[in-house]
């Protein structure tokens, strides 16, 4: 049980220790179910209080990596711009898991493709703060995700920072069953609307389709300046579907994931339209 980030980094730096960072522990404790080895040593962060805070100001929200999904969903209740993140935190897994699973764990579990908070944070232009023995660095979440499997330096993700904006956002997911299942597709969307009702600053993030969540940049570009018409966006999405190389995994085959992706995007866009038209509280 590390008492400080520096202490945790010290243990991590010892390559021979075979240690992994543990936050809520909900992913690492399922290692055997995935037929994966259990790491030799856990370095627990739960005794480091500063990692459990949420700070909100006019410009940004800073979320400590140990903040649980349950706490996060309640903290974002009065922040409509971050609706996608609130929805993701409120619908992931189940109530019991949401009490212990953390946002840091969701982002750092590199073999967890169906992480709701990752897609939501991506569409909100999140950055992450990384602590290393030689200092602190802040990087875009998208860059962190792209490189996280290749990282060899001991580092700890301490904060997730999301800029405040005038945009609206929405989160949608599809599971094969109502409970006891990982989503086969996750879509988070954010956008603002111009005075002529066209969209600007569109962000679309897709999770669970590929091994790592990522932005759907070709579709984002195609939607700039377009009207928010969910049916038209669904049709347009189908023409950009070749951007994805879907993963084959338990729960759903790859072809199914990309087949239903435009429909899940449609759901998110319906929610987004409701917000932009002032119909959603």
């Amino acid at each position: 049980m590390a008492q400080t980030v520096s202490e945790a980094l010290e243990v991590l730096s010892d390559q021979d220790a075979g240690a992994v960072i543990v936050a809520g522990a909900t992913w690492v404790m399922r290692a055997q179910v995935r037929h994966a080895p259990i790491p030799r040593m856990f370095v627990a962060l739960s005794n480091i209080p500063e990692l459990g805070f949420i700070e909100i100001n006019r410009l940004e929200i800073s979320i400590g990596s140990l903040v649980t999904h349950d706490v996060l969903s309640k903290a974002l209740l009065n922040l409509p711009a971050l609706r996608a993140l609130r929805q993701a935190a409120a619908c992931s897994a189940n109530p019991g898991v949401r009490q212990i699973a953390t946002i840091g764990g969701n982002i750092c579990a590199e073999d967890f493709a169906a992480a709701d908070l990752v897609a939501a944070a991506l569409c909100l232009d999140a950055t992450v703060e990384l602590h290393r023995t030689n200092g602190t660095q802040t990087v875009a979440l998208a860059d962190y995700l792209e490189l996280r499997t290749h990282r060899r330096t001991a580092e700890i993700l301490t904060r997730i920072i999301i800029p405040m904006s005038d945009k609206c956002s929405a989160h949608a997911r599809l599971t094969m069953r109502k409970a006891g299942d990982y989503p086969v597709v996750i879509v988070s969307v954010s956008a603002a609307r111009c005075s002529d009702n066209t969209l600007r600053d569109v962000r679309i993030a897709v999770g669970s389709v590929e091994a790592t969540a990522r932005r759907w940049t070709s579709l984002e570009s195609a939607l700039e300046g377009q009207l928010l018409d969910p049916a038209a966006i669904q049709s347009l999405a189908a023409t950009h579907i070749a951007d994805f190389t879907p993963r084959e995994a338990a729960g759903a085959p790859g072809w199914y994931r990309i087949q239903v992706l435009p429909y899940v995007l449609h759901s998110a866009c319906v929610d987004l339209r409701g917000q932009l038209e002032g119909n959603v509280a």
Partner: protein
Amino acid sequence: MTVNLTLNGEIRTFFGDPRTSLLDVLRETFRLTGTKPVCREGFCGACVVHIDGLAVPSCLRPIGLLQGASVTTIEGLAQVDALNALQLAFKDQDVVQCGMCFPGMVMTLSKFQETNPTPSRAEIKAAMIGNICRCTGYERIVDAVLSMQSRENAQ
């Protein structure tokens, strides 16, 4: 590693691998077998216990994180040889089928009732989303929880 925790109101000590799940510690070390091992990945809810006031799956909690924690299992929820109000409602409504999921159902719903004593049918179902009943007896479980409100209203 040595871990001291309060278990059903008593101070207990665990000696062993800190990566061991609380579920296995409860069943194998302390012989509290009311907490059921089923999916072992936090989906089914059969192993839900209360840890520091939260209803969480014990299969996902390494014992090494629980130094100083207060844990309540189904065995410690009510006085010995007695049932709490929720258990009584389940019994009165003849809800229990195979019984495998019920300790977890009781632990989840009893904690839920503390924050929402008069839930709607939809709210009860939402609270139960992490508790799977293979006998598919959900509706009668919901009926039993709702019956507690009508009983209280009648008093």
